[in-house]
């Protein structure tokens, strides 16, 4: 695995990244290092891109049941530029504001990307959460039914963004758990 040209990040760039993300300088530099380690050799880090596979094999995401969704949501054209990675880390950082986290969580959970978390999405989520083969149809139905009955305010059998936001804004645990601390150094 080659490395990118080790271009030192400009102070201006760094400052800009700091301003535009919720990351600290160290975190940015750390992500930068991780990025350089993975990306194809001979390219400036700004032009280089990582594939989804590379990103989803990062220690932070390797075992995450939603890694493919995360990659999909944060990548562009199926590849990650350095800034995409930063954007992802920013959303998952501790300082990111709740509304931003909820927004991206919604996108991650919206498997079929139809703008709603519907039963299909919910079942997929539950299957991934439980990750066992013996999840019975009944259980799935039960869980989705209960989730919807808790959070679906307009009774359309799926969660719109506002409903999801409403439900998650009440859940401080979500804010705490929708975080990834460890980006490789």
């Amino acid at each position, binding site marked *: 695995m080659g490395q990118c040209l080790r271009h030192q990040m400009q102070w201006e760039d760094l400052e800009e*990244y*700091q*301003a535009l*993300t*919720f990351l*600290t*300088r*160290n975190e940015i530099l750390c992500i930068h290092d991780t990025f350089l380690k993975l990306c194809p050799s001979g390219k400036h880090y700004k032009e280089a891109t990582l594939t989804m596979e590379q990103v989803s094999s990062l220690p*932070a*995401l390797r*075992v*995450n*049941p939603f890694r493919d969704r995360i990659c*999909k949501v944060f990548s*562009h*054209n*199926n590849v990650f530029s350095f*800034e*995409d990675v930063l*954007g992802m880390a920013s959303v*998952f950082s501790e300082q990111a504001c709740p509304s931003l986290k909820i927004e991206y969580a919604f*996108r991650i*959970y*919206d498997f*079929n*990307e*139809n*703008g*709603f978390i519907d039963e299909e999405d919910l079942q997929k*989520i539950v299957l991934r*959460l*439980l990750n*066992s083969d013996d999840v019975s149809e009944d259980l799935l139905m039960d*869980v989705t039914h*209960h989730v919807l009955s*808790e*959070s679906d*305010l*307009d009774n*359309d*059998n*799926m969660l*719109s*963004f*506002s409903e*999801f936001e409403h*439900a*998650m*804004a*009440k*859940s*401080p*645990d*979500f804010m705490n*758990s*929708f*975080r*990834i*601390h*460890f980006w490789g150094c």
Partner: protein
Amino acid sequence: MSSFHRNSSFEGHADYSGYSGFQNHTQDHLEFPGSLDNPGFHRPRNNPYSSGSRTNPDYPSSLVEADYPGSLSNTDHHSTRNPSFSAHSRTRPDYQESFPKPDYNDFQSNPYRTGSSPEPHYPGSQHHPGFSGVRSSMNYAGSRTNLGYSGSWEEPDYPGAQGNSDHPGPRVNSNLPGSRRDVGYAGSRINSYCDTLEEPDYPGAENQPNSPRFYGEPDYPGAEEDHGYGSSKLGVIRRRNGPLGMLRRENEDYPEGIEMASMAMAGPQAHSPRNGYVNSAYERGSSPACADGNLLLCERDWYTSPQGQKLIASLVPMTSRDRIKTIRNQPRTMKEKRELRKIVDKEKSKQRHGALEANCCAQCLNSLSLASRRTKSNLSELLNYVSLWQKTFKVIGGKFGTSVLSYFSFLRWLLRFNIFSFVITFSFVIIPQFTVAERNTLQFTGLEFFTGAGYFRDTVMYYGFYTNSTIRHGTGGPSYNMQLAYIFTIGACLVICFFSLLFSMAKYFRNNFINPHIYSRGIAKLVFCWDFTVTHDKAVKLKQKNLSTEIRENLSEIRQENDRLTLHQQLTRFSAHIAAWLVSTGVAAACCAAVYYLAEYNSEFLKTHRNPGAVLLLPFVVSCINLAVPRFYSMFRLVERYEVPRQEVYVLLIRNILLKISIVGILCYYWLNIVALSGEECWETLIGQDIYRLLLMDFVFSLADSLLGEFLRRFIGMKFITSLSLQEFDIARNVLELIYAQTLTWLGIFFCPLLPFIQMITLFIMFYVKNISLMMNFQPPSKAWRASQMITFFIFLLFFPSFTGVLCTLAITIWRLKPSADCGPFRGLPSFIQSIYSWIDTLSRRSGYLWVVWIYQNLIGSVHFFFILTLIVLIITYLYWQITEGRKIMIRLLHEQIINEGKDKMFLIEKLTKLQDMEKRANPNALILERREVEQQSPLHVEELNAAPDLRLRRSAQDENLEV
């Protein structure tokens, strides 16, 4: 609003041009991975389409087969799309007649549609979107990139279609502003098709007039728009789209969303309808934040949209800090944020330019602020760097998740607290004392580390060592009154602790108890709150397993709730609870009595017995109680069987805290009533020593528990009784230990000012010990812990029984008790507070400090002032309480309203469906007629063709509804 409609209606067009839209998205996707210079094309955002359109294939086919069997005869159109195409072209007549139908009006009356029909000669197109439009337009909007690919799909579908007279092709392009774009992209992608399209058709000339009109709307950044797309760049098109997305985002209000949703609902049973609403829904869902799909499109130019403009306008007047914060919170890519920032900065500088041109001062200020910002960021970096154990925290979070992490962050929080207290006492009390310290003549044996007595008695550690004199170095130098310094420093320490506790408690309460009653069960939380922090393979597996049991348990609980317990069961359970409470309080009382008599007896015993180690008996017994009784309590779980695990945890916590606090309480009673009044020489130091020993013994016990107990337990679990497996980290018990130790520290700070320092060290060591023990001996807790709520509860516990208890004890000490006569800073005074009184007296004799005296007499010392203050606070509290009550009612009403809104939509959809049903039944022949017409169509009919797709859309909507 209106512009939005127009746009949307326009989009309707686009969509119909993308009439194949429904069917072909998927393919398009696959086939043209961004081959258009459309970077956004491939983004996940676009996928909505593909997913949405997954179901599509059904739809066209159903359309084709059911309604247009004859369409097959249309030889030149060979794809599925063709039928639909023919279908809609056919519908032309139908369209005219059906358009004034009532069902439309329903929708027109929607807020969303109002003002949407200003197009005189295109009413149909306008209405369409409204109707099927809800979906079609959305659909389009979602696919801003459509243009990009509305063109693109031509290819897959008509690979060999050159020979065909693909009217669809030309139409598509012409219709959309995309036609211009054609110029741009046609070259690459659709060459063949360009050739083959019948030229006359293609120009779609009559469309063009329309489209400008659509966008050329007033609130649209119209002029530049036109010009923009005259230039036929993709970007331009995107920009045009951007606004749409933006607008929608802004204008669309929630009900509308519901509407769409419910519209969708009408369909779920049918297999195909999905596609229709999927997209719209998608758009809706993403809209609140220029979501995914939007992102792509608006990527480059979204800020030229009204919405973007508004955002920019709102950003300009902000302070630079707020501005950056707001920009940072935009759910956009970095590039967009950067551009946004640039634009805002430009705007800002423009404004400033107008105001004070080339003002040197402003420049200076600018560079100054930049410099200060850099320093600040550097400083915060440094602070971050200093902040302890960052990396360890990451590892713990990765392996054990947030719940265990919360224990460690609580520990770190306490550590900071103690460091802070230590810094204050050290700098204001200990250092001055050092400067006048006498030689310590006592000998040091080493046992003093445990007993805290002996050598330590005459060090800065204890109260008794401090001087009551005024420290003055050199004649005429500043003097330092030790008495006042002592009482003020400790007081300030406690006050600051009080406020920081209060604020953090308030913060936690605000964040974590916003509306706990709404979601009683929290399965949604279980499902959506996957702990992303966990990055360890095994931990993830375990977590999944635990989550599975938890979900099952939760569901079974809900089921159980429905079947009520029999009277007998209820009675058994109730009596079990009563018994458990009786036993636990009995045990606690017995422990307290034992501690009290032991302490009393011990003091007698110590008088006669001179072995220095004997003083350790009391702390040893107390620590034993603290170690054993909680474990005994947790065995009650076998008898009590709480249905809700959380209830069990809370009950256990309450019992434990009751035990610990009552032990500390009884010890306080013993200290204040026996030790202090016993006439012992320097009783404050004795109390300080007692507390030191308790603290130390507690530390030793937890150390031993971690190092021996936990390792032993693992050893046994691994080697001998494998059924035990690994134990879980008991967060509650561990946190309670921390709270207990912290209580002792606060209590002792007056008698032993160095106690925060000792606690600091113990916490520091505890962190590493617990960390190692955790890594080696434990597995993550199986219950999904409501970590944040628990931490709130812990901080509350720390505040309420523990800190307030300490305050009471110290208040009694300071106001009531008589300081020992021969040692300590307050020697000779009738009470500790007397030092303050005499200070005020001296001050009142100096004219410069009369204001202090006044403040003291009128505010602090005055009963009336406090009476009035209390009254005011009570009134304010009452008012706030009333406001809260009002808000609660409001929330309930709004909830009901949302639900009713949903019902309304359902009702309307049903009605609409019924009407359409009727409409279709009324003229079943229309379709055939139409088709014939289509077949006769010549290039000259482009006009109608353009209108027709709208109809098609509408038709498709009808069909969907029919299927329902």
